[in-house]
């Protein structure tokens, strides 16, 4: 036993040494892009590193990259990367905005950014630069932040509306959160002000809950979302609930709990309800199953008034970024398909963790077409991750550049990747 462990450890060191930062012939340390695994003819470059908790990002039509941080770097919560070209890092890195958060989106001449309670916007000039970094307009204020699931992700439609996700400050709306034996509250009071999507005017200052439209409900926690331009419709990725086995070991075993429930994609219309906390989606039975906190047994279905997901992925992989690809750099099959940045799991323990990757889901006629595939893999630096703090990088945000390049942010080290395609 002892021998095996030492051998395993040695192998780990050797493998790690050769694939992570092993110096090349010129003595230069290889960048995190070098151990990403991509389909043939795709290449990754690192345009920035060590930004810290880099959450969502947006690229202006002139090619400036804006990154939202969940921890200030040098007092700044937004980083601007300029001078991005075919190789190496951006020529210039500056920052502004003294608030932390997740949301970052560009629409027209405005850069939108969210804190965990507010949404701000900054006007851009014709070079894509923020005109006045010191005085953004506050568009939305006073949204709920009770720590758990407090990211406010944002996207805009083509009719002057802003959509903000507000996550549930709870796992399953139990009387006592994440506590074995504690029943679900019925009706769940969290749904009035969280666990949903709120719609606001994109250009009106200081809106609160009272000014917003409660656009969709029953969504436990949405971090990744995008406006699908070809369908003119909001698509979101829900983080499914945790701890089925830990909370109900009589109904679920550890293996089932590591796979269930699905992480789900929804195509939303105003007024939709996705069913949380009363049901979860079981990707094996392909049904909405009544939550055990509300009398479920793992088989009884529920949520007759709730919508079904349009797509389902293995549990706990934490989809934090969604992007429908509209560029022309990548081959035709990627057009209008969905890239999804999975942050990687923690709630699979004691099973091995997984999902530190970017997925591609092909679409045809507005519907998922065939099985999803792993597009960019090995952000973690290893496929043997038992605990998320071992992951070297975790994908979070996605954005598309004006040339069709795909940008991915990592919120462990703050590495920003630019993925390009060329078959020449």
């Amino acid at each position: 036993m002892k021998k095996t462990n030492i051998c395993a450890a040695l192998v780990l060191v050797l493998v790690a040494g050769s694939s992570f930062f092993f110096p090349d012939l010129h003595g230069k340390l290889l960048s995190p892009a070098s151990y990403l695994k991509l389909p043939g003819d795709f290449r990754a470059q690192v345009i920035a590193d060590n930004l810290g908790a880099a959450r969502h990002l947006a690229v202006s039509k002139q090619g400036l990259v804006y990154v939202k941080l969940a921890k200030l770097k040098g007092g700044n919560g937004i980083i601007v990367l300029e001078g991005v070209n075919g190789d190496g890092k951006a020529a210039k890195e500056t920052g502004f905005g003294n608030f932390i958060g997740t949301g970052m989106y560009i629409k027209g001449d405005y850069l939108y950014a969210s804190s965990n309670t507010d949404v701000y916007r900054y006007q851009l000039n014709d070079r894509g630069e923020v005109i006045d970094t010191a005085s953004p307009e506050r568009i939305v204020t006073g949204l709920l932040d009770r720590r758990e699931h407090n990211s406010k992700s944002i996207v805009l439609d083509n009719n002057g509306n802003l959509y903000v996700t507000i996550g549930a400050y709870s796992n399953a709306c139990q009387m006592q959160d994440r506590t074995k034996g504690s029943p679900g509250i019925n009706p769940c009071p969290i749904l009035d002000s969280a666990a949903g999507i709120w719609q606001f005017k994109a250009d009106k200052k200081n809106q609160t809950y009272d000014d917003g439209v409660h656009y969709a409900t029953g969504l436990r926690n949405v971090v990744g979302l995008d406006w699908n331009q070809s369908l003119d419709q909001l698509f979101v990725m829900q983080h499914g609930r945790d701890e089925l086995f830990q909370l109900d070991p009589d109904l679920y075993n550890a293996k089932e709990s590591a796979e269930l429930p699905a992480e789900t994609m929804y195509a939303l219309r105003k007024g939709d309800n996705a069913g949380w906390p009363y049901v979860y989606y079981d990707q094996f039975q392909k049904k909405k199953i009544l939550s055990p906190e509300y009398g479920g047994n793992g088989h009884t279905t529920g949520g007759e008034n709730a919508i079904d997901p349009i797509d389902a992925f293995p549990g706990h992989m934490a989809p934090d970024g969604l992007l429908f690809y509209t560029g022309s750099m990548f081959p035709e099959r990627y057009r209008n398909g969905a890239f999804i940045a999975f942050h990687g799991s923690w709630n699979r323990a004691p099973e091995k963790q997984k999902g530190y990757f970017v997925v591609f889901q092909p679409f045809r006629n507005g519907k998922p077409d065939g099985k999803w595939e792993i597009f960019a893999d090995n952000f973690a630096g290893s496929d043997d991750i038992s605990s998320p703090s071992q992951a070297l990088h975790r994908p979070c945000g996605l954005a598309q550049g004006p040339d069709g390049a795909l940008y991915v942010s990592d919120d462990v080290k703050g590495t920003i990747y630019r993925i390009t395609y060329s078959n020449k």
Partner: protein
Amino acid sequence: MKRIVIGTLALLEVGLISMKSPSLLAAAVLEPVHGPAGRGKIIYEQTCLPCHQADAGGVPGMNPPLRKSPYVQGAPATLIGIILQGLNDGVEIDGETYSNPMPPFGAVLKDNDIADVLSYLRSHFGNKAAPISNLQVGRIRQTLPNKNNKNKQLKDGYH
């Protein structure tokens, strides 16, 4: 020469990064844990590991790490109180904040379970602090308003 030094440093660094957790895990496997700490290990794996992870590394931004932890090695009364009553105060360790609430385990774990798991934690994962006894846990439990020690979240309600 410089090149070699850089290479060696890089290897060392990577070695340290990737070995941090496996070596701790290996240590836990290699050295059989007997007595109360042995029971503590079992309780850790059944009750704490799903959130705090096999290497006690926690989940960045969500569930705090328990390795080399100021909380684990800190005042027994505070530590025992957290296990009994849970915690929903936005813990900050080394500049990182943790968002998920800790559920109360006062109704789930007995005094000796809590003493054992804390003694195990305080002597593993890079922690070095004195073990905790059943009596210490019992004394703290008696000071709490409710024998079951429900989380204050329940009192406050959701709104």
